[in-house]
């Protein structure tokens, strides 16, 4: 494999930014955001340079690696600090740095009134660096560093306004739930080392050819656990909605475009494991299917624009996971959906940010309405993203989602029908709730509060939105020309085999999908465009709505199953430590004291009883003699 010495700059540049900004403190308030943006952009530049280098090489030599130093080397456990840039990672590098840079630019304006803007940019740079490490690491352990690094950045950014206790709690929740997923990654690495003797991607891939199915299944399931944590998949999805506490650019970058898709990256990167472990793969698709429905259902009930988008993100990642779980047929489509989703979802989040910016930080869609007139650019960019996500051709989402639905149908047998049906139903619901967002925000009647004076955002904000909108229009078309992305990725994820027997022709699938979308859109338009929308969410709604509003009881479930018992266990242990463990120790002390106090009573002060004691001693001795001389 080709080696390179410049990969490290991809990571080093944003990391440098974060370090400088954090160490310099308030001194860098004036120029910090500019430096951070510049460094992010230059990292994007390096990415582009790498891409051009890569394109100049023949297909089989496109992967580039760089070994920095031996990181951990103990016995046979040898992990280098090494980077690997191949066709898969370059997609991510460009997505991360590209979208990241746009969001940097957006944030310059968005955060201009925040006194801690510099810190925000430091965190953003930290995130970019960590995320790049995640996708560039050449082993699971290196990936793990980035994996937790993005978790940390996510934690810091969600809790950026941690003076609000709820936000601080949200950040903690995100971190802890991510850690549960991380645990899965730890397990996967441990199992890999114990069974395969290596944790590098190349090593594991090589070993996976000969390894037993059981070992690979175990690794695969653990990787899936990791993915569910980071990508907010069922059952570790609960943190994502709360993560919207962070500033909106964060939601766009981390909780829509990049970090949450890390799970998909992990699964695709580990394709060799999942391909050899059908059980694990099956679990992947099940998780994906459940999540896509879960997110979609939650999305229908949310009035908070960001939470609605978050639910949508969850659902869309469900699509990706579903795709990734379909094996070589789906990896590329999963990645494609990931990339297109990166564009349109980031664009929509930025749009939402723009709306909030104009609406005095109001997030409740029931208080929006008719913003189209006041924020035309936002409306257009958001609208393009909307068309992309619901899958209207020729927007990007159509190509990518359609491909996944089609592949799902083609998975074969009942499985195929179930998965395809789910994906199709999901598409309909997506169309419904996204239309609901669109309608409530931009087209329906004004339902503003008195102090809201909607206005268009400045150029620094709308420009990134516009660029992303262009992306969400064009990427799908571009990626599918001549199976461009599929072919590009095939050296990494394996050849995409066209299935011989198709359950449904592609055209039929597309038709069904479009029909589903149309139904969804129609219902939403009827329900929200025509009817008046109350400014306060009605309470006399069906039990299903209520459950959906409560995120399908996910928090209640976690609370009842994990938190409460955990708290009970904690307080039990605290009391137990005090009374039982320490109590035992003190008990020994007390016993000694008690023994001392009672033995002390033999010391009566009477000489005669002392004499009796001596006499008894003597008797004991001669009694002993009496016994031994029997």
């Amino acid at each position, binding site marked *: 494999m080709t080696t390179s010495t410049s990969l490290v700059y991809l990571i080093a540049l944003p990391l440098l930014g974060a370090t400088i900004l954090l160490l310099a403190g308030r001194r860098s308030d004036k120029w910090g955001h500019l430096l951070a943006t510049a460094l992010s952009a230059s990292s994007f530049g390096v990415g582009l340079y790498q891409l051009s280098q890569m394109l100049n090489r023949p297909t089989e030599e496109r992967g580039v690696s760089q070994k920095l130093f031996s990181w951990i080397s103990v016995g046979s456990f040898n992990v280098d600090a090494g980077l690997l840039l191949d066709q898969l990672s370059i997609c991510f590098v460009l997505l991360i740095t590209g979208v990241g840079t746009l969001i940097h630019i957006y944030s310059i304006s968005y955060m201009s009134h925040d006194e801690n803007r510099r810190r925000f940019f430091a965190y953003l740079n930290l995130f970019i660096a960590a995320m790049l490490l995640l996708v560039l690491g050449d082993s699971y352990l290196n990936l793990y560093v980035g994996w937790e690094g993005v978790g940390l950045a996510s934690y810091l950014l969600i809790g950026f306004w941690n003076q609000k206790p709820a936000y601080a709690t949200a950040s903690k929740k995100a971190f802890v739930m991510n850690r549960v997923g991380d645990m899965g990654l730890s397990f996967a690495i441990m199992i890999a080392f114990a069974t395969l003797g290596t944790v590098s991607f190349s090593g594991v891939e090589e070993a996976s050819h000969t390894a037993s199915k059981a070992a690979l299944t175990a690794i695969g399931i653990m990787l899936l656990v990791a993915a569910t944590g980071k990508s907010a998949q069922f059952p570790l999805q609960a943190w994502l909605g709360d993560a919207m506490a962070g500033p909106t650019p964060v939601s766009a970058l981390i909780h829509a475009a990049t970090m949450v898709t890390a799970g998909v990256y992990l699964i695709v990167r580990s394709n060799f494991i999942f391909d050899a472990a059908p059980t694990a793969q099956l679990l992947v698709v099940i998780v994906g299917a459940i999540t896509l429905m879960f997110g979609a259902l939650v999305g229908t009930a949310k009035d908070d624009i960001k939470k609605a988008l978050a639910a949508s993100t969850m659902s869309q990642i469900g699509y990706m996971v579903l795709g990734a779980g379909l094996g070589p047929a789906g990896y590329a489509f999963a990645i494609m959906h990931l990339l297109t989703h990166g564009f349109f979802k980031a664009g929509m989040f930025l749009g939402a940010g723009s709306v909030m910016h104009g609406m005095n930080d109001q997030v409740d869609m029931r208080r929006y309405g008719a913003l189209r007139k006041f924020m035309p650019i936002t409306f257009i960019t958001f609208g393009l993203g909307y068309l992309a996500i619901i899958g209207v051709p020729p927007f990007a989402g159509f190509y990518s989602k359609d491909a996944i639905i089609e592949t799902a149908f083609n998975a074969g047998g009942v499985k195929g029908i179930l998965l395809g049906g789910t994906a199709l139903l999901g598409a309909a619901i997506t169309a419904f709730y996204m239309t609901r967002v669109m309608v409530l925000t931009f087209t329906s009647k004004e339902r503003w509060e008195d102090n809201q004076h909607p206005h268009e955002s400045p150029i620094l904000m709308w420009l990134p939105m516009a660029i992303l909108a262009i992306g969400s229009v064009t990427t799908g078309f571009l990626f599918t020309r001549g199976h461009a992305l599929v072919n590009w990725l095939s050296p990494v994820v394996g050849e995409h085999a066209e299935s011989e027997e198709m359950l449904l022709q592609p055209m039929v699938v597309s038709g069904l999908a479009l029909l589903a979308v149309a139904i969804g859109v129609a219902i939403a338009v009827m329900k929200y465009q025509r009817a008046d929308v109350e400014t306060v969410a009605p309470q006399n709604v069906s039990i299903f709505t209520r459950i959906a509003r409560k995120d399908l009881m996910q928090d209640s479930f976690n609370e009842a199953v994990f938190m409460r018992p955990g708290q009970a266990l904690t307080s039990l242990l605290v009391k137990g430590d005090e009374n039982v463990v320490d109590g035992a120790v003190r008990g020994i002390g007390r016993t000694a004291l008690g023994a001392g106090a009672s033995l002390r009573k033999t010391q*009566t002060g*009477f000489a*005669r*009883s002392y004499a*009796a004691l001596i*006499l*008894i001693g*003597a*008797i004991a001795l*001669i*009694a002993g*003699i*009496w016994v031994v*001389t029997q």
Partner: protein
Amino acid sequence: MLTIQTPEAVMFWFLAPLAVISAIGMLLVKKAVHSALLLAWVMITLAIFYIAQDALFLGIVQIVVYTGAVMMLFLFILMLVGVDASDSLTETIRGLRPIAITAALGFGGLLVSLIGRATLGREAAGLVDANSEGNVQALAKLLFSTYVWPFEVVSALLITAALGAMVLAHHQRSVPRATQREQAIARFRGASLGSAAGLPNPGVFARHNAVDVPALLPDGSAAPNSISATLKARGDMLESTQFELSEVDNTVTEEK
């Protein structure tokens, strides 16, 4: 080869039970003096046993030194601390009496049973040979040759005993004894001339002549200093007013 002649056996069976009974009696009698006398009897019995067992010297010493001197010392001290004082034999320390009885039976029983079990693996030899030159001479020989060092050292023990008794009993004079002259001067320089001729005896001029009744002075008042200081300290002094003469004819009639 030791054979025990019948006379000795008779003596033993007569005296030994007596000794044991006396010893037990020593524990059971209330008065310490009686205990002392019973102990003296046991010691005398032992002296007889010694003599019977060819330990003439020890038998004599037992009587002269032990029974004669040591026991007398005990009696002396008993007199000193109150010869009448009798012990109450009720046990005041809870649980001690049963322990003592058990101990007595256990210790004695075990000891007797063990002696019964003991064998020496050699015949009793008798002291005929050892005493061939006379018991006293043989003892002296041992004492002044083999055991000369402990013998010497015992002298230190005796000095210690004497020194100890002195430390505890000797009243060092805190002020030098007053000479007769000084005493006389003090007597006459004193507050009253009443004591010039010496203190009155108790009971003098009183209607009662017991030692604990103060004397009456010629003017009819009581003289507390006529009572021994010991009695005063004990509080054994009787109020003398009851013995005062109610009518004292103070008029001096001149006898012509």
